[in-house]
């Protein structure tokens, strides 16, 4: 293993640097239904306002993992321009491959139609491990989500692995 890879130390310098992003689209019932259709989930809480109204939710909500992909690409190495990203991986022979290793999330309030989602994200941890096929760098990125009233919606940690 190459000790103290420059990629690792460059990534570690970015820990705690926060970036904020407000989605340009308001969540609509149609977006929620399409997400539910894509995953094959026919739960009427996501499709039928009349049903949802008489439940404890009082109206349609989004499925729990709706956040997993929400502006995901804004969260990977938060706040960096593509030029900065390139400089991190400058001395590699090829583009590094990125894989998702896991997700950890907590829902504080469900997403509802009319929400405008704002996220604040930051790199919280970077570490390396020796894998079967070479050096692996793990990156943990946390995003906190809020609605337009500043109410907390969810927290999601993406664990990504970089194959060098």
């Amino acid at each position, binding site marked *: 293993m190459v000790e103290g890879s420059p990629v690792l130390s460059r990534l570690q310098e970015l820990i705690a640097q926060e970036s904020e992003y407000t989605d340009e689209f308001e969540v609509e019932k149609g*977006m929620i239904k*399409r*997400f539910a*259709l*894509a*995953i*094959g*989930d*026919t*739960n*009427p*809480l996501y*499709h*039928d306002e009349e*049903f*949802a109204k008489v*439940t*404890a*939710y*009082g109206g349609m*909500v989004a*499925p*729990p*993992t709706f956040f*997993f*992909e*929400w*502006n*995901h*690409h804004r969260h990977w190495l938060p706040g960096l321009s593509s030029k900065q990203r390139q400089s991190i991986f400058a001395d590699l022979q090829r583009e590094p*491959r990125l*894989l*998702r*290793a*896991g*997700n*950890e*999330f*907590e*829902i504080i*309030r*469900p997403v509802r139609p009319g929400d405008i989602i704002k996220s604040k994200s930051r790199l919280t941890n970077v570490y390396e491990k020796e894998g079967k096929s070479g050096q692996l760098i793990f990156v943990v990125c946390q995003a906190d989500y809020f609605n337009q009233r500043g109410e907390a919606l969810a927290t999601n940690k993406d664990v990504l692995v970089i194959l060098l």
Partner: protein
Amino acid sequence: MGRVALHRYFEDVEVGYELPSLAKEVTLEQQAMYAAATWDIKGTLHYDSGSAQKLGLPAALAEGPMVAAFLAQVVTDWMGASGTFRKMNVSYRGMVFPGDRLVCKGKVARIYRDTGQGFIQCQVSAENQRGDKVVYGTALVTLPCRDEPDGRRTGS
């Protein structure tokens, strides 16, 4: 629609109970719908076979979080509209491609009460047709308790 329970109570749940499993056959069409629904258009390897093959993959790679959504569905189908989904941790351990037949399972691992709420932790996993666990983790939900006056309140 309509198979979702309206009221399920904490007192009726036992450790070891196996939630009804869900069978999901992954298709390229579904992967494309998921990419569109999540606005993940840049990730062409997830819905375009040619892009995936250029990266050395045999076919378009299903996104891990799509499978995590199946696992969340196992839990939400069972808990019904009176339950609240609180937390989920998942690890992506195997690749999923179009044509894979997944069985998504859940099992009650732990139950406890805290501040008037009934917490239920489930182990969840998705297994492919070769028996590989491709995604697994835990989900935490709350259910109303019969003896709490505002037990039905959920979702704030």
